[in-house]
C-alpha cells in the first residue's frame, strides 16, 4: 500500500426516519456524551499544526454548498485555505467550529478562506445543526456526500484540517480538534499570506 505524502510530516509536529429519532440523536450528537455514554475527558483543543516534510499539491475538487452552488478548490488559488473535514456527529468538530469562525473573521480582509467539508451528510442534516451552534459559521460549508474528497486527502478521522498555501500546496495538517483562534495558528496563517 502506498503511503500518502499528505501524512509525511517534518520533524523536530436525507433524510431522517422520524423527528423523534433525529431529536434523540441530536441530543446525543456528542458522540461519547449525553445520556447514552459515560462522560469522557475530552482532550484539550491544542493549537499545534504539523508541517509536512514535503508540501504536497492539494487535490482539486468541486463540491456543492447548502445553496447547491458549486465551489472548486482551484478557484481559490491565490488564497490561503484552511480546509476542515467534519461531521455533525463529531464532538471535537463542534468544539472547534467557533475558532474556525473567529479566524475566518479575523482574516476576512486578507486572501484567506475557511472551507468546511462535511462528510456524508446532507444539507437537511446540517442546517438545523449549525442553527444550534453558539456561533453560526459564515464560511462555506460544502458537502462531500460520497466521501471521495476525504479519500483524496487521505482523511482517516474527523476532524482533520489542512492549511493550504496560495499556490495550492498543503503545508500544515492537524488531526483532531484544535483551537484555530490561537496566536500560534494565526502566526502560521500570516506566514503563508
Amino acid at each position, binding site marked *: 500500500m502506498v503511503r500518502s505524502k499528505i501524512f509525511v510530516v517534518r520533524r523536530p509536529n436525507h433524510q*431522517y426516519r422520524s423527528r423523534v429519532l433525529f431529536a434523540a*440523536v441530536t441530543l446525543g450528537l456528542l458522540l461519547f456524551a449525553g445520556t*447514552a*455514554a459515560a462522560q469522557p475527558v475530552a482532550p484539550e483543543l491544542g493549537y499545534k499544526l504539523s508541517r509536512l516534510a514535503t508540501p504536497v499539491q492539494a487535490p482539486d475538487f468541486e463540491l456543492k454548498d447548502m445553496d447547491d452552488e458549486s465551489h472548486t478548490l482551484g478557484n481559490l488559488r491565490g488564497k490561503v485555505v484552511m480546509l476542515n473535514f467534519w461531521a455533525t456527529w463529531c464532538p471535537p468538530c463542534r468544539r472547534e467550529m467557533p475558532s474556525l469562525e473567529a479566524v475566518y473573521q479575523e482574516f476576512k480582509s486578507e486572501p484567506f478562506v475557511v472551507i468546511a467539508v462535511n462528510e456524508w451528510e446532507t444539507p437537511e442534516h446540517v442546517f438545523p445543526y449549525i442553527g444550534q451552534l453558539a456561533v453560526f459559521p459564515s464560511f462555506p460549508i460544502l458537502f462531500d456526500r460520497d466521501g471521495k474528497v476525504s479519500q483524496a486527502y487521505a482523511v*482517516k478521522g474527523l476532524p482533520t484540517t489542512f492549511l493550504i498555501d496560495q499556490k495550492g500546496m498543503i503545508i500544515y495538517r492537524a488531526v*483532531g480538534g484544535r483551537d484555530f483562534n490561537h496566536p500560534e495558528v494565526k502566526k502560521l496563517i500570516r506566514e503563508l499570506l
Partner: protein
Amino acid sequence: MIKPFLGLIVLIPALGFAGQAKESRDPNTGLLSWKIEEPGLGIQFIQMLPDYVSALYSSRGLPPELIKGMAKYCVFGTIVTNESDRQLSYRVADWRYVTPDGTSHKVKTKTEWLKEWQSMGVNYRWSILPDDQTFEAGDWSQGFTTIPLLPESTFDLIYSWTLNGKKNHGEIKNLRCAPAKPPIP
C-alpha cells in the same frame, strides 16, 4: 487457541509496560469509562449503550441489517491521543481482547466493518476508530471499538502503540461492555 495468547504474554516484557487504567463512573448515566495514560499515549474507552449506537446509525439512514449487525457487538467510544512531542502510531489489527476463558481474539478493524457494509451496498465509512493512524504532536482521534460480546461481558484488552519507532504494549483488565439498558434510569 491459547498459543497466540501465550505468544503475546512472552512479548509483553520485551515490548513495554502497561500503565494504570483509571475507571470512572458517570454520575448521570452510571456508565463506565477507562482512561489510560502511558508514556506519550492517552487512550480512553467509554461504554456506549446499544440503543444509542443503533440510533446513531439509524439516523444516518443506514439499513436495518447494518444496525442489526452492530447490535451483536458491544461498542466503546475510543479516544487515542498523542501526548508526546514525537510521532506516535497505533494499529487496531495488533490489539487483542481476552475473554475470561483465556482466549485471545483479534479486535475487528474498520476495514473489516467497511467490507461488510459494502457487501450491503453501503458506502458509509465513518464512526469506527480508524485502523491505523500516525499522529504528530498534538494529534488525536476518536471512533468506536467493537467487541462481539453480550452486554455486561468482561474482558481484558491488550493494546499497542509505537512511539518514536519503539513498539509499546499495554493491557486493561476487566473492561466491561455497557449494559443493555441504562444503569440509572
